[in-house]
């Protein structure tokens, strides 16, 4: 089983996530896509770690997973807050307070 296969799979997953991030309008949709991308990276860590033959990749992945969870928590909190402010679907292209 060549390593390249795993890496390409991860790249595909990452690209799909990228597509989602750039095309979704809803905040939660973007959050989901970000999860996909993070997942792709985790997959890469594990793959490389496996082909290195040690635990390092897994250790990293563990930390990364924990971080992702934190990120999701904050992200969702923000979404809920925005929802309260706007009382509607949280569409990120309507949030423009920071425009120049």
């Amino acid at each position: 089983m060549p390593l390249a296969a795993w890496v390409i799979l991860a790249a595909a997953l990452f690209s799909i996530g990228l597509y989602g991030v750039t095309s979704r309008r809803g905040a939660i949709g973007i959050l989901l896509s970000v999860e996909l991308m993070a997942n792709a990276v985790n997959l890469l860590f594990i793959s490389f770690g496996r082909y290195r033959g040690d635990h390092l990749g897994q250790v990293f992945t563990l930390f990364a997973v924990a971080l992702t969870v934190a990120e999701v928590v904050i992200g969702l909190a923000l979404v809920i807050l925005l929802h309260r402010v706007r009382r509607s679907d949280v569409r990120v292209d309507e949030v423009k307070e920071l425009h120049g």
Partner: protein
Amino acid sequence: MIDRIAFGVVALLLLLSALRVVTSKNLVHSVLWLGLTLVTTAGAYLLLSAPFIASIQILLYTGGVITLMLFGVMLTRRGEDIAIPNESSEGGRALILSLATFGLFTGAVLKTPLPQEAPPFTGSTAELGREILGPNLMAFEVLSVLLLAAMVGAIVIARRRDPGSQRPSLGLRIEAEAKSQEGKS
């Protein structure tokens, strides 16, 4: 041979579910498809001889994150309807960008000499545990602080009132501010 078939199945499932995550019209569906993606990834971890991470993946992600997401989705909707729109737009530029990225990465991978076969794996979960709490203890502890901070932050942002005071919470104050801005404009 058997691992190649397993890889094929996992890859196929993974891509399919991921595509559905970003294309599904219904947000709830998207979340559920993401759940499938995450589970499939756990399968991939198993194939890569990382059972512990695979179990973490299922426990944390599939159990925690997906649940959270569903809560989030539900909390931000009033409607009785389970069909929550998850719109996309400007798909064109997104598609081009992601395809270009994919092409770039693939090209890079193919150009790089990577090992054809995995070396025999000798590790165990016990060793992983020692690794985490041994050389990487510092990072582990920092991470725990981070998680604590995230938890506190989430509560501060989302709750309604500071305990023991009549002052509205930060989130509510932002909300009020935004409303007054709207009133002005």
